[in-house]
């Protein structure tokens, strides 16, 4: 039964390779990709239910037991995130045909897409630190493929910056793994956890831990390492932006969450205090960025950053409540960021520009788009009863219970500013006098593209109003990861 857990990684891998053979048959690869994505989603859904009912699925790849072989750990946290990833993938794949150019489709968009999913799923589920590096490289390489796709002038320029930063952080990552290996003699995460607990002199481990933090924080776009993020994220096609915005930074946050609950949980006083401060600055500088520009895509890209701050805040506070907040926020943010990137993609498409100053009165031509965007803004800002609120509430409760007043106030303030940065777009872009539709010929495609975003939005709303269906699971996950012994026992089988 435990082979089941390999499917979320293996299926997209196979699909990605399959569609690579038929790049010129656009219609076929489009349809196949859509079918494959749905299959994948159903399978992952099944695996999720299985894990939910029967507990974690552990797969020893090649039959080599931990800690010697690579272990795939399908615990509830991992599989929840994998499921969310696949939901976003499904929305993206139905949005893609309208959004992509012929050339983008022919030059392996669909392969990159599936391999990105494979990499992300692998990163969520691996129980081996070096293997995490490998999956990082898979997802990064797929993202390089996606970001350059189309060879636009700006795109190429921004891609270089993106590749360089990620290349550097990968090198730092692999070196840091070696440092840790030197100290604890293993790369299996569960065994590292065991051994770290046994060490008395934590100094070097904390230092290595903080280097890991920086590696992941660069990917997650935490202050002060997020500079590279906003512009490269908006240079490719909107569907690619959506995948990036929804998945990539979240892999970084997930890795911080996993490593600092499982392995580097000894010197909490020091590391987690740092996280709280960084979280505060991340939120502030993120929203300042979001308010700074009239480029609607850039506004959404900047809004990735404060969300990362919120999640980091929960990890910094480090209680069961706050960690549930982080996980809730993580799932929420993946979905809503994807929805928002898809929506601003449509807005820029129908307006023919992403410059807010050149828009106005769009609601008269695109009411559905306008209202979707409005609701999405509310969801993002954490207005109840939508999904952002539940996560935020847990984070605030966790923060105040630990007397972390400063971060709570910063979080409240940034919620307001997030709302401001988004509602500006609604007011200036959608409201206003009824003018002639700048591109009436784009209406049919736009009305097809709006529904995938709508589905994601509906999920966000469900995640908020129906919190009772989700919160107990999230709370279980939080309880589970705050007690690393369960993970260790299930992997090492002692």
């Amino acid at each position, binding site marked *: 039964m435990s082979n089941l857990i390999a499917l979320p990684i293996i299926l997209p891998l196979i699909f990605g390779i399959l569609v690579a053979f038929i790049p010129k048959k656009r219609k076929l690869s489009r349809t196949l990709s859509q079918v494959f994505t749905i299959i994948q989603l159903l399978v992952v859904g099944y695996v999720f239910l299985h894990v939910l009912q029967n507990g974690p699925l552990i797969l020893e790849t090649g039959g080599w037991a931990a800690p010697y072989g690579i272990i795939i750990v399908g615990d509830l946290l991992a599989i929840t995130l994998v499921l969310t990833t696949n939901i976003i993938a499904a929305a993206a794949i139905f949005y893609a045909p309208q959004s992509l150019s012929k050339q983008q489709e022919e030059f392996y968009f669909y392969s990159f897409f599936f391999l990105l999913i494979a990499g992300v799923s692998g990163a969520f589920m691996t129980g081996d630190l070096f293997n995490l*590096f490998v999956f990082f490289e898979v997802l990064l390489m797929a993202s*390089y493929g996606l970001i350059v796709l189309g060879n636009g002038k700006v795109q*190429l320029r921004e891609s270089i910056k993106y590749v*360089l930063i990620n290349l*550097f952080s990968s*090198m730092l990552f692999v070196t840091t793994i070696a440092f840790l290996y030197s100290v604890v003699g293993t790369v299996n995460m569960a065994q590292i956890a065991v051994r770290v607990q046994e060490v008395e002199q934590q100094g070097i481990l904390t230092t290595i831990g903080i280097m890991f933090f920086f590696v992941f924080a660069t990917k997650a776009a935490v202050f002060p390492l997020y500079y590279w993020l906003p512009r490269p994220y908006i240079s490719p096609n909107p569907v690619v932006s959506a995948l990036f915005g929804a998945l990539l930074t979240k892999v970084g946050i997930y890795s911080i969450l996993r490593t600092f609950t499982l392995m580097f949980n000894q010197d909490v006083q020091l590391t987690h205090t740092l996280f709280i401060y960084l979280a505060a600055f991340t939120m502030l500088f993120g929203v300042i960025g979001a308010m700074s520009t009239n480029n609607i895509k850039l506004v959404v890209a900047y809004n990735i950053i404060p969300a990362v701050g919120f999640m980091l805040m929960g990890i910094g506070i480090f209680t069961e409540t706050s960690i549930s907040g982080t996980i809730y926020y993580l799932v929420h943010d993946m979905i809503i960021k994807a929805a928002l990137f898809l929506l601003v993609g449509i807005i820029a498409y129908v307006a023919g520009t992403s*410059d807010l100053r050149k828009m106005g009165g769009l609601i008269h031509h695109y009411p559905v788009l306008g209202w979707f965007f409005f609701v999405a803004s509310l969801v993002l800002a954490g207005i109840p009863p939508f999904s952002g609120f539940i996560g935020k509430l847990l984070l605030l409760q966790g923060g105040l219970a630990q007397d972390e007043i400063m971060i709570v106030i910063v979080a409240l303030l940034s919620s307001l500013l997030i709302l401001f940065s988004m509602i500006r777009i609604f007011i200036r872009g959608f409201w206003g006098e009824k003018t002639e539709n700048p591109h009436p010929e784009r209406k049919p495609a736009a009305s097809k593209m709006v529904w995938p975003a709508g589905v994601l939005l509906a999920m966000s709303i469900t995640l908020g109003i129906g919190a009772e269906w989700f919160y107990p699971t999230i709370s279980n996950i939080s309880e589970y990861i705050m007690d690393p012994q369960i993970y260790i026992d299930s992997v090492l089988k002692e």
Partner: protein
Amino acid sequence: MEILMAILAGILFTTGIYNLLQKQLLRIIIGTGLISHGAHLFILTMGELKRGAPPILTEGVETYTDPLPQALILTSIVISFGVTSLLLVLAYRAAQVNGTDNMEQMRGNDYE
């Protein structure tokens, strides 16, 4: 010896980063090359150096050098190779399309 190698790898990082901070694409990419050499040397050093024969099992040999870092480096070398190749071609295309290989002239603004 490990200390020496750690220093050498550190110097590779230093020179690599110095190159990375330059404006010209070629230098930047050379920088990334140096950094990955440094990283691989670090990994090797983290296994114990020269504590035995190469990890190829032979009758009568009791001690071998640590095989795991070597395996990890091998994976990493291959991956770095892939990334570097991509980066090179990307740099070439970006320089060609943008008409410059000076990164300071590839800053761009918000509305492109």
